[in-house]
Each structure stands twice: as structure tokens, then as C-alpha cells.
């Protein structure tokens, strides 16, 4: 799976969860790697890119989560 496709899968997962459930980075690694049969490390690297591109941001709400940044 190409990195861009993994990034898309991560973004869609976070977007779908918005307003329903806060996702920890670990939740994202587990779900995206299981759904796509890929190594967690690949998901980790893809998330890192999404954060560096500021398409996703970390938030702290009693624990650390990933979210889509507010507009």
C-alpha cells in the first residue's frame, strides 16, 4: 500500500470519528493496520507525515489524541 493511500485511510478514519469518538494515535495504528493488512510502523510514518503537513493535529484532553485541525 502506498503511503498516500495509508494517509487517506487515516484521514478518513479520523474524519469519520469526529464528534463520536476521540481517537488516540494507537487506535489509528491498530485499526488502519488491521483493516489494510499492513505493519503498524507504516501507519505510524504516514500519520507523522499528516501531522507535519498539518492535515491532522495532536490534542490533549486528559490523554493525547489526533484530530482534524479547527478551521
Amino acid at each position, binding site marked *: 500500500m502506498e503511503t498516500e493511500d495509508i494517509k487517506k485511510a487515516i484521514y478518513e478514519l479520523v474524519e469519520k470519528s469526529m464528534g463520536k469518538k476521540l481517537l*488516540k*494515535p494507537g487506535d489509528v495504528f491498530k485499526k488502519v493496520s488491521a483493516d489494510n493488512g499492513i505493519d503498524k510502523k507504516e501507519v*505510524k510514518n504516514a500519520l507523522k507525515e499528516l501531522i507535519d503537513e498539518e492535515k491532522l*493535529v*495532536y*490534542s490533549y484532553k486528559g*490523554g493525547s489524541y489526533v484530530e482534524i*485541525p479547527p478551521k
Partner: protein
Amino acid sequence: MGKKYDTPLLDDLESGVFPSFVTEMKRAAEQSEYANDLLGQLELSFKENLTHWKHGGIVGVRGYGGGVIGRYSDIPDQFPGIAHFHTVRVNQPSGWFYTADALREICDIWDKYGSRLTNMHGSTGDIILLGTKTENLEPIFAELSSRGWDLGGSGSAMRTPNCCVGQARCEWANIDTMAITNEITQHYQDEMHRPAFPYKFKFKIAGCAVDCIASIARADMSVIGTWKGDIQIDAAEVTNYAKGGMDIAEEIAGLCPTGCITWDGSSLTIDNSNCSRCMHCIAKMPKALRPGKEKGATILLGSKAPIVTGALLSWVIVPFIKMEPPYDEFFDLVDRVWEWWDDHGKNRERIGELIERLGFPAFIKATELDLHPQMIKEPRRDPFFFWSEEDIIK
């Protein structure tokens, strides 16, 4: 900037013989709007017995998920100077050694962008810069990083590793705590800056079992310097201690937790096979006793302060490990521990709590740790590994 608020309750805290944080806040308030409004809000909180802080949210510097703790006043109209009052955690140098120039550099940056208030140091050892606005975070980070500083850990991440002064200033350090701390910090940069754990994870590295940084009570993983082999005895110096008035029977042999020391009035003997390496005798008679020659560390896991559930002390998981560069064995162990925690930990569950929930046998099987009789919860009392029926039949 003049005094804006009457603070009779805070003023009272300036009485007495000890230095007062109120005095420092008032000094800062002479030149800082942040510190001035901070005094006003704190006085109000004391009066109402109610906090006016809220914290968290989306705040930080680009690419990092830690190092900044978002904090806001819940009455910003009343105290606009602290509408934002974010904390910046700066990764401290190992052992907290600074030049005066380095400290001036940090403080100059903070005078320019922050409240002028600092806290040396936080419980994970970081330099804590207290109170700034969201728009100042990137400029602060840029200035800090251009001078070689970095932010520390916060949130569900590896927190800034911390150590005692080690071999830099202490003759008892069995391991190079400062080098190990620096190595962990460099090796796990992503784990510190990009929070991906169930909750926080703290390393503390102590040079010996005196444990000046209290790692056994404050670190998820404690690395404590120890030794293999016999304690080295200088008989002539033992005699000097006795001649100097030390009651060796009472103060040394009598306080040995395992009772492995005997003193017959003229010579001291140690049953090293029963020594728990607690350092008591060595710390009391440093000229006469020294640790054994083969140095390494004991790894303990699981301590924490009581935040979500009660406090825990660490348990021994590796009685002896060589702690020498490139530390491959140690990093491999850490990776296995984290993998198990990542797979099974609930949100906001520390590693020690997970072990309590699932049991030590599950943890040991998953991490493939070798079993040793020294892997104990409470020394010489409470083994945490229990053999299964299957093991006994074998």
C-alpha cells in the same frame, strides 16, 4: 507596571522565614502583564477556594504533540493577561548541569515571550516556563531550537528522561546515568515528541540503590545502577570507622536489611550471596566499602503517582543488565515492554496498572523475560511469579 490588584491573602504567604513564590510573582509582575493578572486571579481563587484554570486542547508547535501544556483562564475578560497561560517544557540537560550563559539564554527568551516565571524543575526534570500566549509558541520554539534546546515530553508520550548526577559528581554511581539518559532521549525522539502511547511513560536513571531521584516511586521504568560480585572491603578503613566512634554492630550490621553483615568487634564480614545491593553499608562507610567490580543496572517497572488509580512502586523485572553503549539489549527490552502495553493498555492506563490488571505471568510471557528469583515485588517477601500446575508437573 504598577500594582493592579490588592492581594491580602497572597501577601500573608510572604510572611515567615522561607522564600515565597508570591514575592517572585510580584517581582515578575513589575514588568509582566501575565504575572500581574496571575496574582489577581490567584487571589480570587484563594478567596473563592476555586480554581480558574482550564487546560488541554489543541495547542503546541508544528509537528510536536508534546512539550506545551495548554492552559487558559476561565475568566479571561477579568484577567486578559492570562487568557492564555501555556506552559512550555524544555528538555533539560542530563544531570541538570548548565553554564550561567545557558540559563541566561533561556531566561532572555522567556522574558521576551513569556511571563518571566519559571519552575526549575518539573517532576520529569524539564525546565518549566510558565505562561505564554498561543501566538508566541512558534517563535519561542524557533529561538530555543536555534540555540540547541528542544522541548520535553508531555501527554501520552515518553516523558523527558531524567537522572541523578551520576559519575559527574558521585563516586557511588555504578552506571553512567547522564550518558544513558542522553542516549534514551536521542533514541526515542519520536516517542517523546509524537504521543502514541496509552498514557505517559517515564524513565529515571539512578546511579545506585540510594536512588537520589526516587526512581523506584516515580518512574514507569527505573534503571538503577548495581553490581555483581562481592562488596570490596578495606579492613584498615573499617577499623578506622570503629575507632572514630561508629557503632558498626548497630549502625551497619544491625541495619542491613538482609542481615548479611556480621561484626565481631574487630572484623567485618559480608555474606554477599544474601546481599540485596541496597547500598546502606557502602553509603555509611564510603572509605571502607565499595561496590563489586562488575557494574550494570537493575531494571524495574511500574511505579507511578496516584492520578487515575493509586500509587505503585516499581517491581524488579531484570535483576542485572550491562548498561554499555550501544545499549541494544536495553532498547530491545523497552521495545518489547511498549509493544505489549500498546497492544493491551486501555486509554490512560499506565504500564504498572496494566500489569496489575492482566497479571505478571502474562507480562513475562509476552515480553519473554527470563525468570530469576530476584524478580520480586517486595524484597524477600512477595514473589510476583507463581508457577502454574503445568510448570510444576514438568
